[in-house]
């Protein structure tokens, strides 16, 4: 019994001192607002909504310059002519309650033509819309390894209507869990 005790003690001590703690952060730290693209197909009898694939998209952040009272482009481009896009994930401002984006669409829309009984293809080339998201920012502590992040609660979304028909907020909470927050309809 004493020998077994001794072996167990040595084993336990070896286990205790041989383990190293993994200090890497395993939690998703990116907080992005998720916007899905949808196409409304309306006929006399029905109205269907389906996910829409945009041929190419370019998104840039816009920051408000108080001196010139104008929105200026951010240096880096968020989406640079990216092909076949069904959704865009954009970062909201961590220390400001307004985030603005310029979205350039290149797409086509196919609709049924009753007169010709054929499908019409409408091309949208370089259609630019400005999206303005008003939101509240809150600190969220993750862990000692990951630190803290800013999460957001969306208040309102404003848009121009060059390409975009309408917008719907589906989930106001923007955090590190990837869920769709906004539906963009064409």
């Amino acid at each position, binding site marked *: 019994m004493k020998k077994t*005790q001794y072996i167990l*003690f040595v084993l*336990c001590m070896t286990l205790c001192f041989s383990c190293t703690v993994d200090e890497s952060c395993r939690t998703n730290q990116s907080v992005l607002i998720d916007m899905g693209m949808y196409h409304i197909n309306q006929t006399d009898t029905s109205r269907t909504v389906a996910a829409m694939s945009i041929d190419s998209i370019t998104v840039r952040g816009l*920051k408000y310059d108080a001196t010139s009272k104008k929105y200026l482009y951010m240096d880096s481009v968020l989406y640079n002519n990216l092909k076949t896009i069904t959704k865009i994930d954009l*970062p909201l401002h961590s220390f400001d309650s307004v985030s603005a984006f310029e979205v350039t669409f290149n797409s086509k829309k196919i609709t049924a033509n009753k007169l010709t009984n054929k499908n019409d293809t409408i091309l949208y080339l370089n259609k630019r819309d400005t999206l303005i998201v008003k939101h509240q920012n809150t600190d969220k*502590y993750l862990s*000692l390894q990951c*630190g*803290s992040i800013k999460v957001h609660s969306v208040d309102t979304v404003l848009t121009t209507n060059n390409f975009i028909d309408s917008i719907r907020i589906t989930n106001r909470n923007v955090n590190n869990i990837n869920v769709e927050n906004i539906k963009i309809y064409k």
Partner: protein
Amino acid sequence: MVHSVQAQKAKAKIVPDSIKAPLFNGFTVQGDLISAISSLTSNGDTYSYEGSLQADFKHKYLPVFEFGYAGADKLTSDNIGFKTNALFGRLGLDFNLISQKKDKKPTNNLFLVGFRLGMSNFNYNITNVSITDDYWGGSQAVPYNNISTTKVWYEIVAGVRVEVIKDIFMGWTVRTKSLISKDADGNVTPWYIPGFGTNNGSGNTAINYTIGYKFQLPFKRKSSVKIKKPNAEIKALTKIGNNNQQTK
């Protein structure tokens, strides 16, 4: 004659085969070696010193009060610091699974299974936490200073105690710990809980190797001598039996 044999067998069945232990068998003061040694070798990241006081009732029920002082002074690779230190306590009950058999040599060794309810009230600081906005720019320091909390947890334990020298016991205890008071998502959770260990949001396991001294009460010492009496009586009876045979 047949009736008397049956009566003897019936009497033999009633006699229990285990020794009836006294109600109170003293108490043991124990200190944990593993926590003390690991505290010295962890470069101050975490430290814990703990001991316990365990009573022995009927050599079967062993209520225990464990107490200690633990803390952490941790700095991550990103320079985020965590600091705490506090007292902690655990209250519980162990059951000894070794039963004393009459036909075997009496043993003071214990094979224990039991449970604990632990609690610690402590303050902690998390320093050098900052939020940086990589796209829009800007950075903000987020101080988490002097946060006060009380954590409660339960433990399932198993272990052995062996009497290495008279009244000196050594042995190990393995324990699984589960937090009762859990933090909600987004709460500033402590990285280390005194008495519980590192807090990963769920359970924890630990091992103790203890050395302890059992304080036996004076009347218990007398009663332990009495255990040897049956052997002396048997010897005396066998002597009488032998003498009777010789006289026949």
